[in-house]
């Protein structure tokens, strides 16, 4: 396992500056997820670590060595692509051993490594097949196996599960987590799927517009979003935002809502944006706030209830099976300890 250190990274494509002055330190053994909407530069960043995109400026250090201008094959990385990118004319075994055969590794060593990777990914019975004879999930396993046989210091994943259906995606996600636990290697993983990010990551890097918005553990990023973008990007249904006013007595008034903030809240008085997760809005009969239900979405194990809040809707998650109908009057409470406040620029207060 290696560490990866990016310093003042700049990447341009044509006259567009995609990434500017980006710094990132990836610790050995970490499972770092780069998360963001499409076009945020996360894939570009990963490709630059792999050496598939040239740097305009800055440096990339992998395993303590400067790799800014090294050939992709010399960087000590293995990579898994979204489209699997298996060599269509080669068998599974040849696909996995291609890199080792190029580097001239001894036959016995090639066989040992291929067998080990095939065993870890349950591919032993498929070694003689061509990619066209495999299902999507099997193909992606082979692609992971091809990265593993390199026994690299860092593994890079570029949206590896996006082409799979929902069930397979969840299955392979669990396998990846087990794989990381078993290997302990450094992994950098690009995705736009927050479920993958939350479940797999030891740390999440949320990106937008070529800039890092927040770095933190999944819990930190989810519970204490650094700005309004991160708050809105993570969570489904997404966080509720209400514009409001905070007075000197730490009392927040936002439309029909009013809320006393806990004493440890350090936000200065003035105009703020209140952000509340749907699960922090509790519907119960002695709640201090009152409104009507506008829509109910049953999800099986929970319901999403949309509440009228002076012109716009608040979503709340209800975990029991109580029957709610649009137009019904309900009382609710907001967990003041778990809210986030943002200033007019969208930064956390």
């Amino acid at each position, binding site marked *: 396992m290696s560490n990866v250190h990016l310093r003042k990274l700049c990447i341009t494509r044509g006259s567009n500056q995609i990434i500017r002055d980006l710094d990132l330190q990836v610790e050995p053994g970490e499972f770092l997820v780069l998360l963001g909407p499409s076009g945020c530069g996360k894939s570009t960043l990963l490709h630059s670590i792999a050496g598939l995109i040239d740097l305009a400026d800055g440096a990339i250090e992998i395993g303590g060595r400067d790799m800014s201008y090294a*050939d992709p094959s010399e960087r000590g990385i293995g990579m898994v692509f979204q489209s699997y990118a298996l060599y269509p004319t080669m068998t599974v075994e040849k696909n996995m051993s291609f890199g080792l055969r190029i580097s001239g590794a001894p036959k016995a060593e090639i066989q040992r490594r291929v067998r080990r990777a095939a065993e870890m990914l349950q591919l032993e019975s498929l070694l003689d097949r061509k990619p066209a004879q495999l299902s999507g999930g099997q193909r992606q396993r082979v692609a992971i196996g091809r990265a593993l046989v390199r026994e690299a210091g860092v593994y890079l994943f570029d949206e590896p599960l996006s082409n799979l259906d929902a069930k397979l995606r969840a299955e392979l996600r669990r396998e990846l987590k087990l794989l990381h636990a078993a290997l302990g290697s450094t992994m950098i993983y690009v995705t736009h799927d927050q479920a993958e990010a939350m479940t797999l990551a030891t740390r999440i890097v949320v990106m937008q517009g070529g800039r890092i918005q927040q770095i933190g553990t999944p819990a930190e990023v989810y519970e204490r979003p650094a700005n309004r973008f991160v708050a809105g990007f993570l969570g489904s249904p997404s966080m509720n935002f209400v514009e409001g006013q905070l007075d000197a007595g730490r009392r927040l008034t936002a439309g029909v809502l009013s809320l006393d903030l806990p004493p440890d809240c350090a936000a200065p008085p003035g105009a703020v944006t209140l952000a509340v997760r749907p699960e922090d809005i509790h519907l119960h009969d002695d709640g201090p706030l009152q409104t009507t239900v506008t829509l109910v979405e049953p999800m099986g194990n929970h319901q999403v209830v949309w509440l009228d809040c002076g012109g716009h809707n608040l979503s709340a998650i209800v975990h029991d099976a109580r029957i709610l109908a649009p137009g019904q009057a309900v009382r609710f409470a907001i967990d003041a300890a778990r809210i986030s406040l943002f200033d007019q620029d969208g930064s956390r207060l």
Partner: protein
Amino acid sequence: MSETTLQAAAPTRFDTAPTARRKRRLSPARIGVYAFLFSAALYFLLPLYVMIITSFKSMDEIRSGNVFTLPLFATTAPWQDAWHKVSGGFWNSVAITVPSTIVPILLGAINGYALSFWKPRGANLLFGILLAGAFIPIQVMIYPLVWMMARAGVFGSLPAIVLVHVIFGMPIMTLLFRNYYASVPHELFQAARIDGGGFWRIFLQVMLPMSLPIIVVAAIMQVTGVWNDYILGLVFAGRDNAPMTVQLNNVINTTTGTRLYNVNMAATILTAAVPLAIYFISGRWFVRGIAAGAVKG
């Protein structure tokens, strides 16, 4: 794909609406379409029919009989005579066509691969210049090429005619392979780069084995083009290497003696046989390869 869906859809529609079927068959538009197709087919096949029957007639029968009647006493003598006259040209054509097919395909594949994946500086400009070559009429370039080859001392030889075919085949071969490789996911190339593949290894071990459909298309186009060529062979090949088309012309346009129509017809059919055979054998491949290059993805 679309063929099977059409076939699957058609019977159900006809089964549920038999009246529509009858109507369809008898509609004047349909009759018009068939009439047009039959007359078009007749227009193209009639000369072929005349060629074939004439080639089996003796000269006496040709002089006395109708052009369209079948031979009364069929003879293969004109065919033997024709083969004797053009067989030298046949082997010359083979000697010209084989290298003039293999070399442009290889170069075109390398060009297309380099342009699609390695994207050298100015790749689009280079490709544009190469393509411009495909649109300039070859007659314009004959004189300068003759002059250059004469200066180099290779004019009128087998290497000269092969070189000319390589030059004129390159733009279209490059275009074919570039477009084919453009449909290959770029991630495949990136994966091979991470595996440590260099320019030639990725080309030979990853890309070329994937290129069979487009190689077949390229081979058909190039073999047909080179085999049917007349003017380049006439100018550059020299007397000893004259291809079959040039010899055929010599046989037919002979100014001495009587015109042996039966032999001329047989020699013409013999010359056309190779591209015809290639179309019949590989027509299916040809369509498949064109489609694979165009819509794969």
